[in-house]
């Protein structure tokens, strides 16, 4: 009965593994995104979050490949679907916005032509109708004078405006899922807020689900419903945003939260919490990949890689889950202290 009540996930990623000839980069990750919700994938550079996002649409760099697992979208496994079928899904079922608005538009085509292309590819619309749809889209993403802007080239647009054009292209065919890979990292702060607000508004208007790839915990707190923290190619914690910010459980998540310069902190009154070492120290280790940097690590942590365990009813992708072998132990100790 529970199955009937629960909205069906738009996308399910099951035990996805991605590798390069030099080694494995993503070691079996599992998550799901439900209709109309935003899932944030956070982590530092090199943790595999962008690879994961690209692999959903099979946009991996040529040397990388999917080693195993499934990416289920509308009952189809995108990891094995034919290229022809995949082309039908890209831009129509699932769209992607990239980090670099400066390089992701074609500089020799007008803005209009680039929006027009995707509409004509997926919808049966005449040229004239496609053009008026494109102009509507420019207006929807907040570009003034869309009729005039339609015939201009990307270099006429500022960074924030180009990102708006990218968004217009991405939402042109009402996708069910929008993947946004660091959509505001290259933009100024005041523009970041504008773009995130636009994305949130469109997500509601078009009832899309969104996978937000980011390293910015502030953006996660403000714009996401669920969050998965990645470290060295694995999800180490997955929770609803409320649970996560109320009390992240994994030592790495806690480290990330404590090392950010929070409200009201000043160097004269609070020293930042450091996470010792760097992500490179995870390479080649046998046990938990965070153990070399973990303040709570014990000998056992260097032995085996902990699996993601749920803390509550449900599955990994809809409840709070953490991959830390010390957690049970810490929890018991806290309870003991509370009783004592």
């Amino acid at each position: 009965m529970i199955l009937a009540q629960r909205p069906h996930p738009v996308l399910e990623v099951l035990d996805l593994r991605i590798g390069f000839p030099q080694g494995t980069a993503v070691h079996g990750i599992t998550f799901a995104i439900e209709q109309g919700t935003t899932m944030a994938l956070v982590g530092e550079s090199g943790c595999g979050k962008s690879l994961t996002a690209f692999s959903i649409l099979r946009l991996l760099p040529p040397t990388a490949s999917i080693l195993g697992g499934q990416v289920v979208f509308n009952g189809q496994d995108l990891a094995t679907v034919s290229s022809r079928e995949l082309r039908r899904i890209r831009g129509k079922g699932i769209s992607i916005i990239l980090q670099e608005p400066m390089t992701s538009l074609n500089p020799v085509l007008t803005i209009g032509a680039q929006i027009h292309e995707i509409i004509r590819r997926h919808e049966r619309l005449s040229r004239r109708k496609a053009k008026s749809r494109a102009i509507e889209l420019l207006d929807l993403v907040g570009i003034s004078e869309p009729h005039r802007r339609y015939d201009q080239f990307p270099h006429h647009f500022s960074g924030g405006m180009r990102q708006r054009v990218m968004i217009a292209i991405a939402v042109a065919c009402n996708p069910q899922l929008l993947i946004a890979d660091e959509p505001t990292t290259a933009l100024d702060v005041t523009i970041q807020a504008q773009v995130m607000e636009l994305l949130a508004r469109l997500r509601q208007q078009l009832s899309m689900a969104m996978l937000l790839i980011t390293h910015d915990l502030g953006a996660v707190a403000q714009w996401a419903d669920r969050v998965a923290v990645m470290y060295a190619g694995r999800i180490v914690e997955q929770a609803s945003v409320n649970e996560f910010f109320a009390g992240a459980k994994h030592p790495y998540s806690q480290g990330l939260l404590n090392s950010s310069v929070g409200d009201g902190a000043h160097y004269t009154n609070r020293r930042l919490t450091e996470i010792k070492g760097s992500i490179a120290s995870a390479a080649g280790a046998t046990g938990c990949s965070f153990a070399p940097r973990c303040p709570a690590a014990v000998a056992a942590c260097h032995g085996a890689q902990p699996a993601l365990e749920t803390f509550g009813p449900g599955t990994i992708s809809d409840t709070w889950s953490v991959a830390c072998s010390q957690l049970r132990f810490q929890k018991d100790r806290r309870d003991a202290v509370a009783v004592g």
Partner: protein
Amino acid sequence: MPLLSVENLRTSYTSRGHTLHAVDGVSLEIGENETVGLVGESGCGKSTLGKTIVRLLRPSEGVIRLNDQDISQLGERSLRAVRRTVQMVFQDPFGSLNPRQRVGTILDTPLWVHGVKDAKARRRRILEIIGKISLPEAALQRYPHEFSGGQRQRIGIARALVLRPKLVVCDEPVSALDLSIQAQILNLLVDLKKDFGLAYLFISHDLSVVRYFADRVLVMYLGRVVESADHATLWRNPRHPYTRALLASIPSATLGRKPAAVLSGEAGQGIPERGCRFRARCPVAVKQCETDDPALRKLPDGSAVACHLA
């Protein structure tokens, strides 16, 4: 007497007969042991200002007084003495270290150039600084590519500090780094300030970092300083509409406090000939803003603001 005082500084770039004043009449002071934060969006002139102060660029107008000596128009030879007092840490830890030099050479060169000819004395200074940045002595034999981004930024900081300067200009020193590494570098800069009695000009586009790190903050917009205040005042009582907008757009890692996109438009649309430079994006602009360019006014509490309405 402040360590550094800058008056009416103007730095211009000319290309194809067109002149852009990237820094357009900026005055500021930095006292000994003080951290001044400089924030603004890309293209506002904050990096140009930093480079002009260390005299990597020559200003077209204005005075830069360091320990009461005007260095604004000094030639390369006389600047050498100045560089012992003022050093710079750059944003990109990958591009700012020579990939063909060992770390030992990178740290040795400034000492040699600045006249420490005794090899033992140089060695002593290098070992001291490498200890401060928590790298082992063996690091001196290695090349920059053997280090991570955070470690490379430490080496860049060590290179700036090996001459024991009084003022260090840090141009976005943590923006290329991951969050967990940012905290390491910020803590290191705080420790070094205490140990060496440093003053910093800390340039960043990231308000939350500046909020943490600066004693006093300058906000720049299109080549001008629009607000200057001590850190507590700036966050509690921001006076310029641009500062207020910047503060409102920081996404806070506290739930339920959505950042507000108060500003429309972008800064890149050119500098208007008359009136306030911010008025096209300003939510509270009035008639007067179109005609009168507001000057930076001193306020009773020591802050300063360039706005007719503040």
